[in-house]
C-alpha cells in the first residue's frame, strides 16, 4: 500500500510538472544557462567559510543590506537607504515587502540575528567593525561602530542576511545544504561534484532575473572545461586556460571575456633587524636595498613570458578607484627596471656582493605562481641577491608564513580588497604589529612606521569619507616611497562563453547569473 501511494504521488507530480511545463512554454521561452566552474562549492551557508565557488552561490541565494555592482560600486540592497545619526551610529531603512524564499517576511529582527550569528561563527571578521545592532522598528536598524568608520556600508555588502526562524530551526550544519535567503535564485538541486541547479525566485524584490534556470557544473580540469564549452555541454566557463585562449578565439561560435581582477600579487620583504633566512644583519631594513630589489624585477617580462600577457602590472597596492588610490602614481614609473642603479644602491647600503635569502611562495594559489617565483630568482640573481626557493601548496603556506613570521624573509602572496577601500588592507598589512588590536595582524614584514600608524588611525576615526580617502592617499605615498612591499601584478580573469551569452565580468570574480542574459 505504501508502495502504491508513493507511485500515485509520483504520477501526480509528473502530471503537475507536465502541466506546469506546458503552461510555461506558452508564456515565454524559458531561458537557461549552464556554467562550468573550477570547483564545486563547499557549502551554501554564508557563515560557513570563504572560498570562491561558495561565494558565487551565496550571492545568488542571499542578499546583503548593501549591494555591490560588477564595478564595485556600493548601492542599496536590502536596505533602501542609510544615514549617519552621529559619528558612530548608522540608521538603515530596510526595504519593504521583501520575502525569503519560504515566504517569511524580511524584517529588522533578521538583521540583528544575522549579526549575532556571524559573531559566533567562523566568520566574525564580517562584523568586526560592528559594535552593536538594534532593531528600531520592523524596517529600521541602527548599527553602531566602535569608532567613527566611514566605510561601514562597504563592509556590510559582505554580510548576507539570514532568515532567523528558518536558520534557527534548520541548524548551521543543514544550512550548508538547505539555504534560505532573499536572493534572486533558489536552490533547486545540488548533487555534489555533479551539478548545482538554481531557479529564479519569482518574488524577488529586484525584479525577476532574465535567466530562469542556472546549472553550475564543477569541472576541475582546465582542458576538460574547454572541451565542455567546445562541445556545447556548458555555455560559459570560468578560468579559461591561458593556452586555450587562441583555440577558443579561433572559432566564431565563441567569445573570450577578460578583465583585470582585484587580486594584487605582491612581494613582502622582512624589515626586522634579524631575518630568519638571512645571515647577519637583515639588509632589507635599508630602503635602498628594498628599492634595489624593486628595480631588479622586470614585471613586463614576467607578464609576457610567464603570464602570456594575461596580467596587468599593478601601479599601487590597491586598484584604481579604490579609496586610497593616488591618481597618476605608478610604482613602475617610480622604480623602472635598472640593474646598474640597483647594484649601486646595494653597494651604497653596504652590500656590494649582495646576499642570500629564501623566497616562500605557493604552487597552487595564484596563476603560474611557481613559475613567477623562478623568474624572480633569476632576475634578482643579476644583482647578486640569491633566492633559495621554498615553494609549497597553499594548505601549508598560510600556516607557514603566519605572523609573527618565524620562517620567512621574502614572501610572495596576493591581496584583494573587495570593500573598495585601502584602509582595512593597510591596517592589516602595514600597521605596526602588536600596537593595537585588530591591526598589523598580517604584517609579515614587521614594517613599522609611526607616521603610517597615525594616518591609519586618523582614517579610521573620521566619519567623513573624503577625509578618509585623503589620509589613505597619504599612506599610499609613504608606502610607495618606503617600499615595504612590492606590488607586482593583477591577475586577469578569463572567461569563455558561446556567442549569444551576455556575461558581465565582475571585479570580485563572482559569476552572477542575474547580471547575465542569453539569446
Amino acid at each position, binding site marked *: 500500500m505504501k508502495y502504491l501511494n508513493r507511485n500515485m504521488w509520483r504520477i501526480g507530480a509528473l502530471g503537475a510538472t507536465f502541466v506546469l511545463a506546458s503552461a510555461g512554454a506558452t508564456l515565454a521561452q524559458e531561458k537557461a544557462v549552464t556554467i562550468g566552474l573550477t*570547483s564545486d562549492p563547499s557549502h551554501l551557508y554564508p557563515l560557513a567559510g570563504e572560498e570562491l565557488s561558495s561565494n558565487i552561490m551565496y550571492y545568488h541565494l542571499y542578499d546583503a543590506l548593501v549591494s555591490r555592482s560588477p564595478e564595485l560600486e556600493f548601492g542599496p540592497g536590502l536596505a533602501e537607504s542609510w544615514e549617519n545619526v552621529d559619528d558612530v551610529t548608522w540608521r538603515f531603512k530596510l526595504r519593504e515587502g521583501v520575502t525569503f524564499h519560504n515566504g517569511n517576511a524580511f524584517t529588522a529582527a533578521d538583521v540583528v540575528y544575522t549579526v549575532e550569528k556571524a559573531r559566533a561563527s567562523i566568520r566574525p571578521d564580517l562584523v568586526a567593525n560592528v559594535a552593536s545592532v538594534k532593531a528600531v522598528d520592523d524596517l529600521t536598524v541602527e548599527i553602531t561602530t566602535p569608532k567613527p568608520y566611514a566605510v561601514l556600508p562597504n563592509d556590510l555588502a559582505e554580510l548576507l542576511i539570514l532568515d532567523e526562524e528558518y536558520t534557527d530551526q534548520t541548524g548551521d*550544519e543543514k544550512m550548508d545544504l538547505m539555504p534560505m535567503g532573499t536572493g534572486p535564485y533558489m536552490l533547486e538541486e545540488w548533487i*555534489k561534484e555533479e551539478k548545482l541547479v538554481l531557479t529564479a525566485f519569482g518574488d524577488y524584490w529586484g525584479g525577476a532575473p532574465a535567466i530562469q534556470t542556472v546549472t553550475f557544473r564543477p569541472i576541475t580540469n582546465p*582542458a576538460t572545461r574547454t572541451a565542455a564549452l567546445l562541445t556545447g555541454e556548458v555555455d560559459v566557463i570560468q578560468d579559461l586556460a591561458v593556452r586555450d585562449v587562441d583555440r577558443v578565439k579561433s572559432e566564431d561560435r565563441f567569445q573570450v571575456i577578460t578583465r583585470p581582477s582585484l587580486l594584487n600579487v605582491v612581494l613582502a620583504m622582512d624589515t626586522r633587524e634579524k631575518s630568519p633566512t638571512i645571515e647577519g644583519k637583515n639588509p632589507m631594513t635599508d630602503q635602498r636595498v628594498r628599492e634595489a630589489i624593486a628595480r631588479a624585477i622586470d614585471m613586463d617580462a614576467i607578464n609576457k613570458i610567464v603570464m602570456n600577457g594575461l596580467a596587468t602590472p599593478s601601479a599601487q597596492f590597491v586598484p584604481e578607484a579604490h579609496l586610497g588610490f593616488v591618481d597618476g602614481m605608478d610604482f613602475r614609473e617610480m622604480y623602472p627596471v635598472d640593474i646598474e642603479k640597483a647594484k649601486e644602491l646595494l653597494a651604497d647600503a653596504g652590500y656590494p656582493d649582495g646576499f642570500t635569502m629564501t623566497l616562500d611562495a605557493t604552487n597552487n594559489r595564484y596563476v603560474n605562481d611557481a613559475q613567477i617565483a623562478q623568474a624572480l630568482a633569476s632576475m634578482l640573481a643579476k644583482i647578486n641577491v640569491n633566492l633559495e626557493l621554498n615553494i609549497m601548496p597553499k594548505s601549508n603556506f598560510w600556516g607557514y608564513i603566519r605572523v609573527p613570521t618565524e620562517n620567512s624573509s621574502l614572501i610572495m602572496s596576493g591581496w584583494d580588497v573587495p570593500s573598495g577601500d585601502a584602509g582595512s588592507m593597510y591596517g592589516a598589512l602595514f600597521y605596526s604589529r602588536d600596537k593595537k588590536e585588530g591591526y598589523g595582524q598580517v604584517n609579515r614584514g614587521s614594517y613599522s612606521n609611526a607616521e603610517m600608524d597615525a594616518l591609519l588611525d586618523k582614517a579610521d576615526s573620521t566619519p567623513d569619507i573624503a577625509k578618509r580617502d585623503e589620509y589613505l592617499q597619504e599612506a599610499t605615498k609613504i608606502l610607495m616611497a618606503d617600499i615595504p612591499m612590492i606590488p607586482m601584478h593583477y591577475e586577469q580573469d578569463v572567461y569563455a562563453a558561446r556567442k549569444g551569452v551576455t556575461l558581465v565580468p565582475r571585479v570580485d570574480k563572482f559569476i552572477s547569473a542575474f547580471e547575465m542574459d542569453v539569446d
Partner: protein
Amino acid sequence: MFGYLLKRLIQMLLVLWVVSVVVFMMMSFTGDPVFMVVPIDATDAEIAQARRILGLDQSLIVQYWKFLTSLLQGDFGHSYVFRQPAMTLILERLPATVEMVLVAMVLAIVFAIPLGVYAGANPNGRLSRAIMSASLLGISLPGFWVGMVLIYLFAVNWGIFPSSGRGDTAEVFGFRISLVTWDGWHHIVLPAVTLSLGTMAILLRMTRAGMMEVGRQDYMKFARAKGATRRDVLYKHGLKNALIPVVTIFGLQLGDLIAFATITETIFSWPGMGKLLIDSIYRADRPVIVVYLMLVAVIFVVINFLVDLVYTLIDPRITLK
C-alpha cells in the same frame, strides 16, 4: 573456515587501526585546515575562534583520542571544510566510482582474457604480436593523456560522447545509479574505457604468460592426445591453471581502481570519491582523508579475502586455513 574468518577480521581491525594512526599523525604535516576556511587577513582572535569551532584547538593526541572514541560509537567525524559527516561525503560519491570501475573491469576482462589466451597459444603469430604491442601501449600511456585524447576525438571532434559529467541517474535501492539510464551509459563509456586500458593490458599479459607456461605442461599434451578439442584444451585445461596469478592481479587492480580512480575522475569531472580525496588533501581536511583511507583499507582487505575464496574455486587443492 571460521577460524580463518576470525583471523582475517582481527587482521583487518589491526590494519585499520594502524592506518588511522599513521594518517592522523602524517596529516599534521600537510597543512593547517584553519587557514583554508578563514580569510587570509583574519586576526588571531578570529583564527582562534575558528579553531575552537572546528575542534582544532586541542593537541593532535587529544584530537586522535576523540576521533577514535567517537569512531567506536559509529561517528566518523566531520569534515572541516564541508562540515558534513565525513562518511556521508564519501558514501555519497562511492556509487559513481564503483560503477565506473565495474564497467572498466568488465571491459578489461572481456577483452583481456580471450586475447591473452590467443596470444599465449600462438606466441609467434602476427596477430599475437600486434596484440602484445598494443598492450604495451596500454601499460605505458598515462591515463590523463589517454583521457584527453579520447575527449578530443570522441567529444570535441566527432561529438559522439559527452566530454564530462555523469548524465542522468535513477535511484536503485537508495543509491543513485547511472547504469540504468541511456544517458548514464552515454556518459560512462569514455571514462570507463580510459580507466580500463591499463588493467586490460596487465591482465592480458598475465594471461598470456600463464598460458605459455601451462602450454608446456604434459597434461596439456595428454588432453590434446585424448582427443579434446583445441578450444577445450585451452579454456578448460589451460586457462583454469593459468588463472591463479591473473585473479590475484585482478583483485589488486580492482582495489586500486576503486581507491585511486582519481585522475580519470578529474579528467572527466566524474563525481566520484577520488576527486574528494584530492580536494581534501589540498584543503588539509583531515577527517575525510582518514576515513577515506580507512575505507580503502577495508576494500583491499575484503577484496583480498574474496580473491582467496576464488582460488579455492579454481583450484580445489587450495584450502583456506
